[in-house]
C-alpha cells in the first residue's frame, strides 16, 4: 500500500511539474516587424552650416535677426534655403538702408544694420520666403516655362496653412534663377537641408498687384481699363478682384499711360475717318486729329465712355494677363503663371493669355528678352493684332518693357509701352 501511495505521489509530482512547465509558455500574438520611425540626421542644420561659412556671415546675421535659427537647425525637418553671400548681402543692405550703408562699407557696418536697424519682421519675412520645407537639390528644380513655383514658409491664409507665398526658382542653362535673380551657387549640403546661393536677397513681395499697380502713376489708364472691363462682372471674374486676390499667380503686362493714349488716339482718329468718304482730305485728317487729341485729353475717363465698348476693353485687358492651360474642365486657361523677365526666352516665344479662356486656339502674345550675362535687360511683347487693323499677325511694332519684374504677392507685372491687340 505504501508503495502504491509512494508511486502515486511520485506520479503526481511528475505530472504537476510537467504541466507547470508546459503551460508556462503561451506565446503572444504574431507581431509583424514594426514600421521604422524616422531616423533624424546629425550634424549642422542649414543655419549652422551657413554660420560656418565666413562668406555667408551677413546672411547668417540675417537669420539670427529673423529669430528662425533654431527652426532652421531643427534636424527633424528638411529645408532648402536660398542664401546670399556677403557680396550679395552688401547690395541688399545698401538698398534696404536707402543707400545709407554704402556697398563698400565694412562688413561690421552691414552686420550692424542687419542686427539693429533692419526690422526683425522683415528679416523673418526674407528668411521665410527663401526657405522651402523640403530638400530640393538644384537638379530637382523644374526647368519648364516659366519657372517652378515652390511654397515658402510664409503662410498667406492661416485657415488653410498650405496656402503659402510661392518663390519661383527655375533651372536653366547656363543660368538658373530664383524669381528674377540668378543662382550663383548650388547644393551646399547641411544635415537637414540644402543651401543654394543667389545673387542677392530675393525679397518677398508685400502687397497685391492691385495695390502695387495703384501706386504706379504711369498706369492710371490701365486701372481705368480694368474698371471698364469689370463692368457687369462679379466676384473673381472681375479683373480687379483677381489683381487683389492674394493666392492668384499672375503675370500682367501693364501698358503705361502713353501706350493707352496712343491707342485711344488711334481709335478715335480711325473712328472719325471711318465716317468720312474716301479719299480723305486734309480737313478730314485735321478734324480726326483734333477729335483724337480731345479724346486723349479726356484722360483715363475716356475708357469709361461709350466711345469704346466694354467688350473691346475687356478683350484688351484679358490679352495682357498671361495664362496657361490647366486641368480645369470649366476654365482651362487660367492666369496662373508668374513670368519674370529672366523667364522669357531670348528667342520669340508664344505665351497664352486670358483671351484663350474664350478662344482656346488663340496663339497668345509673342515675347522675347535680351540678356546681358545672367540678367534680362530688355523684353518685348508682340500682339497678334495690328493698328491700324488688317496687318499680318504679329507684324505690328512690339511693346517694350519699360519696367520689369514689378513683384507683388499674387503676381508680377511688367510695364510696357504699347497696348497689345488680340486681333
Amino acid at each position, binding site marked *: 500500500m505504501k508503495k*502504491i*501511495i509512494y508511486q*502515486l505521489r511520485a506520479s*503526481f509530482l511528475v*505530472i*504537476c511539474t510537467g*504541466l*507547470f512547465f*508546459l*503551460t*508556462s*509558455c*503561451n*506565446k*503572444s*500574438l*504574431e*507581431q*509583424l*516587424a*514594426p*514600421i*521604422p*520611425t*524616422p531616423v533624424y540626421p546629425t550634424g549642422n542644420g542649414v543655419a549652422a552650416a551657413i554660420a560656418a561659412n565666413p562668406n555667408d556671415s551677413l546672411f547668417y546675421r540675417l537669420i539670427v535677426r529673423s529669430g528662425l535659427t533654431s527652426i532652421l537647425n*531643427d534636424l*527633424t*525637418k*528638411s*529645408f532648402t534655403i536660398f542664401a546670399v553671400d556677403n557680396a550679395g548681402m552688401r547690395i541688399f543692405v545698401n538698398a534696404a538702408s536707402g543707400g545709407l550703408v554704402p556697398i563698400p562699407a565694412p562688413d561690421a557696418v552691414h552686420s550692424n544694420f542687419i542686427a539693429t536697424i533692419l526690422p526683425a519682421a522683415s528679416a523673418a519675412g526674407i528668411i521665410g520666403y527663401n526657405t522651402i*520645407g*523640403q530638400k*530640393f537639390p538644384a537638379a*530637382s528644380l*523644374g526647368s519648364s516655362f516659366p519657372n*517652378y*513655383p*515652390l*511654397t515658402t*514658409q510664409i*503662410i498667406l491664409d492661416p*485657415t*488653410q*496653412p*498650405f*496656402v*503659402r507665398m*510661392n*518663390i519661383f526658382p527655375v533651372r536653366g542653362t547656363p543660368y538658373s534663377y530664383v524669381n528674377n535673380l540668378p543662382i550663383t551657387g548650388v547644393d551646399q549640403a547641411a544635415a*537637414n*537641408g540644402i543651401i543654394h546661393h543667389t545673387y542677392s536677397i530675393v525679397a518677398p513681395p508685400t502687397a497685391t498687384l492691385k495695390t502695387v499697380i495703384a501706386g504706379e502713376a504711369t498706369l492710371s489708364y490701365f486701372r481705368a481699363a480694368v474698371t471698364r472691363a469689370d463692368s457687369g462682372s462679379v466676384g473673381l471674374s472681375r479683373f480687379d478682384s483677381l489683381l487683389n486676390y492674394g*493666392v492668384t*499667380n499672375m503675370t500682367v503686362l501693364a501698358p503705361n499711360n502713353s501706350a493707352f493714349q496712343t491707342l485711344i488716339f488711334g481709335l478715335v482718329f480711325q473712328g472719325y475717318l471711318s465716317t468720312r468718304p474716301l479719299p480723305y482730305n486734309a480737313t478730314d485728317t485735321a478734324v480726326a486729329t483734333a477729335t483724337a487729341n480731345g479724346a486723349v485729353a479726356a484722360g483715363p475717363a475716356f475708357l469709361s465712355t461709350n466711345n469704346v465698348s466694354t467688350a473691346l476693353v475687356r478683350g484688351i485687358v484679358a490679352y495682357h494677363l498671361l495664362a496657361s492651360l*490647366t*486641368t*480645369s474642365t470649366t476654365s482651362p486657361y487660367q492666369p*496662373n*503663371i508668374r513670368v519674370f523677365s529672366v523667364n522669357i526666352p531670348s528667342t520669340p516665344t508664344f505665351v497664352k493669355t486670358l483671351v484663350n479662356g474664350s478662344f482656346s486656339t488663340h496663339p497668345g502674345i509673342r515675347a522675347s528678352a535680351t540678356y546681358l550675362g545672367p540678367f534680362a535687360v530688355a523684353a518685348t511683347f508682340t500682339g497678334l493684332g495690328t493698328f491700324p487693323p488688317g496687318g499680318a499677325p504679329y507684324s505690328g511694332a512690339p511693346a517694350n518693357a519699360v519696367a520689369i519684374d514689378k513683384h507683388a504677392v499674387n503676381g508680377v507685372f511688367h510695364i510696357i509701352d504699347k497696348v497689345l491687340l488680340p486681333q
Partner: protein
Amino acid sequence: MRKITCNLVTFLLANMITIAAFAQNVTINGNVRNSSSKEGSGAVSISIKGTDIGTFTDDKGNFKITVKNLPVTLLISSVGYELQEVIVSNATDKVQVEFKPTNILGQEVVVSASRVPQKILESPVSIERVSAATIRNSPVSNYYDVVTTLKGVDVTTASLTFKTPTTRGFNSSGNTRFNQLVDGMDNQAPGLNFSVGAIIGLSELDVDNIELLSGASSALYGPGGMNGTLLMTSKNPFKYQGLSFLVKEGLMHVGSQRQREPSAYHNWNLRWGKKVSEKFAFKINAELIQAKDWMGTDNRNYNRLGTTGSVKAGNRQTDANYDGINIYGDETTIDMRGFFGGIAANLPGAANFINANGLLSSAQNVSRTGYTEKELFNPNTVNFKLAGSVHYKITPNTEAILAAYWGTGNTIYTGSDRYSLKDFKMGQYKFELINKNWSFRAYTTQENAGESYNATATTRLFNETWKKSVTTDAAGNPTPLPTDWYVQYTYQYLSNRMSGMTDYDAHQAARSIADVGRPAASSTAFRTAYDAIRKKPISQNGGLLLDKSDLYAVEGNYDLSQFTKGFIDILIGANYKKYVLNSQGTLFSDSTGTIGISQYGGYLQASKKIFDRLSLTVSGRYDKMENFKGRFTPRVTALVKLAENNNVRLSFQTAYRFPSSQQQYINLQVGSTRLVGSNPGFATWLNYAGNPLYEASSVIAGNPMVFVPIEVKPEAVSSFEAGYKGLLMKGKLLFDVYGYYGQYKDFLGRLNTIQTTTGIPTDISNPNKRRNISVPVNTTDKVKTYGFGLSVDYRLPLNFTIGANLASDILKDVPSNFVAFFNAPEYKANVSFGNSGFGPGKKLGFSMAYRWQQGFFYQGDFANGELPAVQTLDAQVSLKLPKTKSIIKLGANNLLNQYYYNAIGNSQIGGLYYLSFGFNVY
C-alpha cells in the same frame, strides 16, 4: 387537419389510459448512503425488480416507495456505484443501504446518440458525456467550460460568458453549424443565430448531464448539426430534490498582462427541487455571474478587406491609416489624394510640392482616431439565469412538464464586428409530455437584444457626431467644410510637410490638430454622446440592434418498438418550426414588418440487433424550409460487439444546414461593406440585373468580372466514421478512438462584390462611385475534412483517475480565394488527473486539467490571423464537510495566468481564481 388532431389526441390519451393504475398499500422507507463517506446519497434510483415502479432518494439519501405486497427486491443504482439488490420482506424497519462506489468506468447511459437510452459503450456514434459528478469535481469556474475538456472539442471565447464550442472544425463565435439543445429545445437565438447555452442555458446546479455528439447529426436532430450537437439536460425534481446553493467568489485580472486592476468574480447558484408527491414536483433555480469581463486587447494593425483581411505592420504612430483590431472608430478611412488633387489644381506651388513628394502617385489613406475596446465597453458583465418547472405525472409513465428558462446579461460577442450584448434577454418556454414510448414538446424562444449594439458602427458614428469626417450634401456628394476632420487633417498635414516635417511627424502633428477637443472616453461628454448613439437603431444612424425575433416549435416522437419488438425497433418523429424575424430594419431587411420562415420535418429510425453481435440502425430525415427545396438526410450505423464492453462502431452520417436567418435576410453595413442576404428580394432592391455585381477580387486586379448571384442552396456534409470503445484491464481502463472523413458540398460562404453607385459600368473602377456588397454563395467545390480522436481514462488505486485525449481535425481541398472559416487546430489534447475523494473520510478531492491546442490560422468575419498555440492548466482542491453536506473548493482556471486568445479579435483570457462553498451539491 381537425381529424388528424383528434386522432392524435385520442392516440395520446389511449397511451396514458392504457397504463395500469397503481394500487399500492405497503410503504417501504429507506436510506442510501455512501459506504465510504457515510454521506446520504441523493438522486439514487430505487426500483422494484420486475416492475415499472420506482423512485429516487432525496438529497439526504432517504426514499419512500409503496408496493402492493411484500417481499420485493429493491434495485438500487446510480452511475459510479455498484448495482445493489436488497430484498425487503418487512416494511416496519427502515432499509439502510450502504452504497459502494465502483471502480468500473464507462457505465454511463446516454440518450442522444440514438434518441433511446443506451450504455455509452454501446453508442453507435462518437459521443461524450459530462455528468453532474464530473462538473462537481471539475476545476472550471463555469460548468460550460467542462465541455472544452472533451475529446475533439474546440472553443471560441468571445468573452467571460460567451463561449462557443464545436467539434470537427468550423468554429467561430456564434457557430451556426453546431446545435445546442437545452432540455430538447434549440438554444439558438432566432435572430442573432448564435447558441446561448452559456448565457441563457442551465444553471450549474441544475445540470444533470451534457452529451456531446461529434460530427454530423442532422438525421436525428434536424438541420444545423453539421459539426455536432450538444445536448444539455437539467435535473428532474422527482429525482433531484432539496435546496442547494453554490457560491463562488474569485479574482480576475491579476498579473503583469492584466487589462485592469484585479477585480472580483462572483458566481452564485441556487436550486430548489421538491417532490411534493409521487405525482407532482417542481424546481426553481437561479444563477448570477458578475465580473469585470475579459476584453479584446489586440491592437495590432489590420488590413480590413472584407473576409480576406490580414494583420499588417504599423501602429497609430507609424501608419496614418492604422486600424487596430480591438480599436473602434478607426475603420473610417479616406484617401487624402482627393484633397491634394483639388489643391494642386489651384495652387501651382503646392502642386509642385505635392508632386515632388509623390502625394498623388499612391494612396494616402488616413483613418480616424479610434477608441480601444477597454475604453468603450462597460466591463461589468452580468449574467442572470432564472428557470423553473412544474412536473406532473399524469400516469406513472407519463410526465407533463411546464418549464421556463429565462436569462439576461451583458456580454461581448464577435460577429462581423464586436458587439456589446447589453441587457440581452432570452426566454425559452415549453410544454412537454414525456412517456417512455413517446414524447411531445412545444416551445418558444423569445429573444430580445436589449440595448445590444455594434461597437464599430457606434464608435464611427460617434466620431461623426463629434466632428464630421467630410460634410456631404443631401445627395451624398462631398461638400467639405473647414470644420471637417479630414479637411483639418489634410490641410495641416500638407502644411506640416511644407514646413519641412517628415511624413511621420507631419501625420502626428496633423492628427493632434484634427483631434483637438476630442472627448476622452472617460468624459461625461463622450459618454452622453456615445450612449445616445448606441441607443439609436442602426436604421436611424445608430448602433442599436433591435432584435426581437422569436421561434415557435412543436415536435414529437414515438417509439414503435412496443409493436415491433422482437423484430425491429422503430422510432418516428416530426417537428415544425416557425421563425419570426423582427429587427425593425436594424439587422434584417424587415423595416416594413416581421419576416416569417417556416420549417418542418420528420424522421424515422429503425434498429435491428443481429446475432447478438451486430446492431444496425438506419435513420432518415426529411426537412423543408419555405425558401428552399426539401432535404433528405440518411444515417446508417453499425455496432459490432467484439466482446463484453468492447465495441466497434461504424457510421455514415449526413447533415445539412439551411442558410441561417441572417444568411437569408441580413441587411447590415459593416465597415465599408454591406452584408446582404440570399433572399431574391435583395436582387430586386439592389437591381442586380440592371446594375450588376462584380467580383471584388477581379475589380482589384483591374479586370472586372460580372458576378451573377445564383440561388443559394443548403450546405451539406457526408461523414464516414469508424471507432472503437472498450473497457480494458478489468474495467479500469476506458479506451475510445475514432476516425472520420467528411465531405462538405455547397459550402455556404460569402463573396465580396462591388457594385457601382451610379449604374454606369465604367464607374466600377472609380473608388468614389462604387460600393462593396457581400453576398452569400455556395462554393461549387467539395471541401473535405478528416481527423481522429482518441482518449484513455484510467482509474488508479485509491480513487485516483487519470485521463488523456488527443484529437486532430484537418481541412483540405479548399479552393483558392475561398474563406472556409475552418478554425480548428490540427492537434489538440487534454490531460486530466484527479480524485473525487481521498484522505481521511475521503473528504479531500482535487483535479487538474491541462489543455493544449496547436496554433492555427484563424479566419473570421471580424478578423483573420495566426493564433499561437494555447496551453492552459486548470486545477482545484476541495474539502467535503459531510456533516453540513457542504463542499469547499479552491480552484483556478488558467492557473498560471498565461493570457491567451482563441480567436482573433476576441477577448484575451487570463487566470481566474476562486473559492467556492457549496451546500447540498450532488
